[in-house]
């Protein structure tokens, strides 16, 4: 089984947003980055599938030079090699631009299975995996919580094929079967993540990272199918009463307000 995992590097959770001078993107130099969380689950799932069925796991990422940090991390966790589509314009690219760049770089490998996280914690389009499936001409399923691969022995899942558990809304699920090769977008929580070991980190240094330059990127940051005309801190929907004071004072005052003003506790 040849499995590709698409990972994105996104600002970490502690990052305080700051805008660049154009007010259409963030000040990248102020941000600290990490692996997009749903992509980490996709990587873990790929590693588990490889352990069970054999084959190789190839990490694919589209982004500027800084992305090599999360590629190294994925290699340290156990991926075999990597493809890095490198361009500064990919930092703020829309989903079509990213999917096109990944599809072009992945084509010659003819992967049996492509996994992505269900969405990214930065732009949050929830599109790249699905658009990638269309560009590669593969069937897909989204928001996956379990993956079964046919081993030729049984009728279900089909062989060679997949049976996957899709999460629906409100606690509902559904199994879907489809032939391989295919593309899946993985939901957070599908598995328990592993951490890189020291041995893994050392081994990662020797693993191949193939750099690809995108052939047909649109000029400029967001000149794809979506133009960000303005980026800003959201306006508050409600007037929040921020309660000041020491923890003890603030806690006491909050309890008083909940009793006497909001009347939501006895």
């Amino acid at each position, binding site marked *: 089984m040849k499995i590709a995992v698409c990972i994105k590097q996104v600002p970490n*959770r*502690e*990052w*305080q*947003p700051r805008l660049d001078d154009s007010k259409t993107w*963030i000040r990248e130099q102020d941000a600290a980055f990490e692996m997009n969380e749903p992509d980490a689950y996709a990587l873990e799932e790929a590693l588990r599938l490889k352990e069970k069925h054999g084959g190789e796991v190839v990490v694919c990422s589209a982004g500027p030079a800084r992305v090599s940090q999360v590629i190294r991390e994925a290699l340290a966790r156990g991926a075999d090699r990597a493809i890095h589509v490198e361009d500064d314009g990919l930092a703020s690219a829309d*989903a*079509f631009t990213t*999917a096109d760049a990944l599809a072009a770089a992945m084509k010659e490998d003819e992967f049996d299975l492509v996994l992505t996280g*269900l969405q990214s*914690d*930065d*732009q*949050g*389009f929830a*599109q790249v995996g*699905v*658009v990638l499936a269309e560009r590669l001409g593969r*069937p897909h*399923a*989204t*928001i996956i919580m379990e993956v079964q691969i046919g081993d030729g022995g049984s009728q279900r899942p089909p062989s060679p094929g997949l049976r996957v558990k899709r*999460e*629906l*809304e*409100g*606690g509902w699920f*559904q*199994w*879907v*079967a*489809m032939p391989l090769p295919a593309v899946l977008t993985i939901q*957070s*929580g599908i598995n328990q993540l592993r951490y890189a070991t020291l041995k893994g980190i050392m081994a990662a240094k020797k693993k191949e990272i193939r750099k690809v330059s995108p052939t047909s990127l649109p000029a400029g940051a967001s000149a794809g199918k*979506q*133009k*960000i*005309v*303005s*980026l*800003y*801190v*959201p*306006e508050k929907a*409600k007037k*929040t*009463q*921020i*309660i000041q004071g020491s*923890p003890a004072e*603030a*806690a*006491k005052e*909050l*309890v008083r307000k*909940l009793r006497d003003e*909001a009347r*939501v*506790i*006895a």
Partner: protein
Amino acid sequence: MILVIAEQRDGKLNRATWETIVGAQQLAKVSGAPITVLVPGAKAAGVAAELAAAQTNEVVTVEHAALEPYTPDGFTATLQAVIAQLSPAYVFLPHTYQTRDFAPKLAARLDRAIVTDVTAVKAVAGETAFVRPMFQGKLTADIVPQGPAPHFITFQIGAYRIDQVVKGPAAAPLRALDVTVDASTIRQKPEAPFQQARQAVDLSQAERIVSVGRGIKEQSNIALAQQLAEALGAEIAASRPICDAGWLPMERQVGSSGQTVAPKLYLALGISGAIQHLVGMKGASTVVAINKDPDAPIFEIADFGIVGDLFEIVPAMIAALKA
């Protein structure tokens, strides 16, 4: 023309469709564009009659073997044929899990722009822009879709209130569409949807909820939140990462993939307020946020907030409640 694609299963309307119609009506008010509502799938007639109450130009149905049961391949092929017939300028959809499964594929097939998770429509320098959260709700972006029509827009659940729908003086006319689709191109074989386990906990009826997020840091700290819940007479709940980690059972998860709640009091401890969580608790009447990050999006919808260390504030609250 603005084409609204309704979502229904087995003749039951997904109510998020009404919100998407509000979005279409708001754009139509400015642009004067007519609105067509499309109901795809078997048993569409009842849903179409229900949606005809909204002020639109017509409600059309399309029933085809390729639509039942739902598959992304079947929906993409059928809606591609519908769009070719109707030539809309915009295609509006509710941002449901089903939409997320097929709409990007449909847009990619047609090579047209798609803007997802939109919360509002506005004019920016003479252009129609769509407002959407980015960076986990820490920032908001105004987006102008580029390239030829149609442009696909998906609306976040809760972007509008259902009572904002403008009703028409009479029911909108109904029409059935005929399309030619090759159902043999469908590659997915879905089985019937199921619920994992009967929900033992029904948080939707809870009057008070104490909900924990990543800020709780460790599983052993859940006990502290539980003590506060007991002192308040509240149920304990959590955001998705806490349930993913197994610190609380999945059935206590609030958000788009968990339960939707509307308590009198929702007290969020160390929850940043990602959209997926907010859609599950927006209906709460009083929201309290305790978080160390003053810029956490949860404060945008909180009535009362304390910026600080929950490990200092929560014990003090428990003491104050017992005093």
